[in-house]
């Protein structure tokens, strides 16, 4: 055995040990990351899944013209001022006849959501012949009653219902007069002070319009800037200065972009507050550096041999860029764009500064309507005192996460699909 072989054998075991150790560190790091993710998801899903269903109660509703104060259901003015709560109250009192006194009656009426009244009005508007008839209807419960039913035995004692209300709820539960169903209002409504009536559609639409503005502005501007800097700009101090500043911009805290938006777009240009257009403009400024940097990296990754081949054939600079560099760099640019968009979708701080944190009930119909966005909705609900908003917050986070995961998956799939090997 030669000296070298002997030396090699001696060190071999140590080398393998080092390799194993290194691998173990890597596995450890990944496990910690996955564990944190798992923890986050179990916590959010554990809290949030309850917001996706809601309880309603079966009540014998009599559309009594006297109680409703409506004699002609075709008269819209009468419909508008109808006393629907009275009908619901009477139905509840009919179900629990023993309730005496104003306090008790009020506590009883509080079990059903005020949304029930709106529903009755809608029914009457659609079918006026209901007036004077009696129907068994499933009416939405108030958030506290809803939470009581959703809670486990142990937690029911701390529910925000009085003892009397709790006994009523238990009675209804035992006689199967309550049932759980999908929470439609979560996906069809805007924000509300009443948790059972609040939805995230307003925030989703606000996010959508904001993202639309951001995408339409930041992607073309970012790609154009990257192409110019990478392909056409002379290499001098000025372009170096620009490059340094683009990298700096990527590291600027997002709230500063919000202040800039407030000062420039709202203050100087007089744009309205709380609108997705301004939100999109601010997020464009914020995403631009990300898109420029990733687009430049994608352009740099185009093999020089392809450029040389095209130039050797007499293609002009413009032809090389448009026909070869851009198509080959596009997957990388798109990936960067989607990641930038995902970043913008999750951004809260700059939007607070431009007033997108307002309480807005109406669904926005365009980029010029006041709106809020998903992460800001999470922020708003998280700071609301009602117990139900805790689950609503988690539900909104789940919806936001779904969008983010979809976008990031799209980025990966797109890169895999469009990537060319040479």
């Amino acid at each position: 055995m030669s000296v070298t072989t002997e030396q090699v054998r001696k060190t071999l075991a140590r080398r393998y040990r080092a390799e194993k150790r290194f691998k173990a560190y890597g596995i450890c790091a990944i496990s910690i990351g996955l564990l944190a993710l798992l923890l986050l998801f179990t916590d959010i899903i554990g809290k949030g899944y309850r917001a996706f269903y809601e309880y309603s109660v079966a009540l014998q509703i009599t559309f009594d013209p006297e109680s409703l104060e409506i004699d002609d259901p075709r008269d819209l003015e009468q419909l508008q001022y109808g006393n629907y709560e009275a009908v619901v109250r009477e139905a509840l009192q009919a179900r629990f006849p023993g309730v005496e006194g104003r306090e008790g009656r009020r506590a009883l009426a509080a079990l059903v959501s005020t949304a029930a009244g709106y529903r009755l009005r809608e029914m009457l508007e659609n079918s006026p012949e209901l007036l004077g008839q009696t129907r068994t209807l499933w009416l939405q419960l108030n958030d506290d009653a809803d939470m009581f039913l959703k809670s486990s035995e142990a937690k029911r004692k701390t529910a925000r219902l009085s003892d009397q209300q709790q006994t009523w709820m238990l009675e209804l539960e035992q006689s199967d007069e309550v049932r759980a169903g999908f929470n439609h209002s979560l996906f069809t409504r805007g924000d509300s002070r009443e948790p059972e009536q609040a939805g995230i559609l307003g925030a989703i639409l606000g996010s959508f319009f904001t993202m639309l503005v951001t995408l339409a502005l930041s992607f073309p501007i970012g790609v154009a800037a990257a192409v110019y800097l990478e392909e056409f700009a002379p290499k001098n101090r000025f372009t170096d200065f620009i490059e340094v500043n683009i990298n700096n911009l990527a590291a600027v805290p997002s709230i500063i972009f919000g202040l800039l938006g407030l000062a420039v777009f709202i203050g100087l240009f007089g744009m309205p507050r709380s609108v997705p257009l301004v939100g999109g403009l601010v997020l464009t400024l914020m995403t631009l550096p990300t898109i420029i940097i990733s687009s430049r990296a994608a352009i740099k990754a185009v093999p020089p041999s392809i450029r040389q081949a095209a130039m050797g054939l007499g293609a002009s600079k413009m032809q090389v860029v448009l026909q070869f560099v851009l198509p080959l760099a596009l997957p990388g640019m798109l990936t960067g764009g989607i990641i930038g968009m995902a970043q913008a979708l999750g951004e809260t701080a700059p939007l607070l500064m431009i007033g997108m944190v307002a309480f807005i009930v109406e669904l926005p119909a365009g980029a010029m309507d006041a709106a809020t966005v998903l992460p800001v909705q999470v922020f708003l609900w998280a700071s609301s005192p009602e117990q139900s908003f805790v689950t609503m917050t988690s539900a909104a986070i789940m919806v936001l996460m779904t969008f983010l995961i979809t976008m990031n998956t799209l980025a990966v799939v797109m890169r895999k699909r469009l990537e060319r090997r040479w």
Partner: protein
Amino acid sequence: MDIAEKMNVFQDAVQVDPRVVAQEHMMTGENLYIPEKTVGAPFVDDPKMRMRDVNVFYGADQAIHGVSLDIGKNEVVALIGPSGCGKSTFLRCMNRMNDTIDICRVEGSLHLENQDIYDPKLDVVELRARVGMVFQKPNPFPKSIYDNVAYGPRIHGLANRKTDLDEIVENSLRKAGLWDEVKDRLNSSALALSGGQQQRLCIARALSTQPDVLLMDEPTGSIDPIATAKVEDLLQELSETGTIVIVTHNMQQAARISHRTAFMYLGEAMEFGDTNQIFTTPRHPRTESYITGRYG
């Protein structure tokens, strides 16, 4: 005699011939640049390309030192020499591919027939259509075989009708000896071809614009021997109708295919002459040591 005069005399005495210094530096591996006169026959009558006193700088470094030589009509000229001697750099001056390198600067006069290649008024697009180039590594576009060959004619507007374009594509592929292998799959990706086929496709692509001069930078440097043989056959055919300048590391290849050979060393053209003469009776001692394999 005053002090100043004494100093002058002293300086005269210590002055040495710079050529001697250069020689000494070359012995020790350093180089100090006083261009040597090219040995052999660097010039021809009525040349296709005429290069005089070409200097190329990369930033502060000089890569080519006063090279002067002619490329004759319809001849194959091989540029040989050790790595880093400036063969490729010199080749890339001939169609201004060096323009794409920011720090690169070219001095001297280069003419294609009577056209000054570095005339600021000259459009490089036009020049590169006349002086085609094939690179060391096959670099087909990530497009179909047809589109690879049709690209040049398309951007220069050489074919107005589809049938004309088809004809150009077929002729170019035939000249490159690739037609029979790919005629049934013209629309499949060029990247699916083998390395040797890709290189012949690149040659077909370079031929598609019918260039006056074809520059080849080690065209067989990264393909296998069988494919190399095919490319060499091809070059021999092409030399009947056109001018080819080929950079090669393979001396047998240079001997087989070229009419004249230039030996370059440290950015200078040491010797330029008839290929047979260079490989049998080299005049410059460095040429001799290089082709006999003493270095390089």
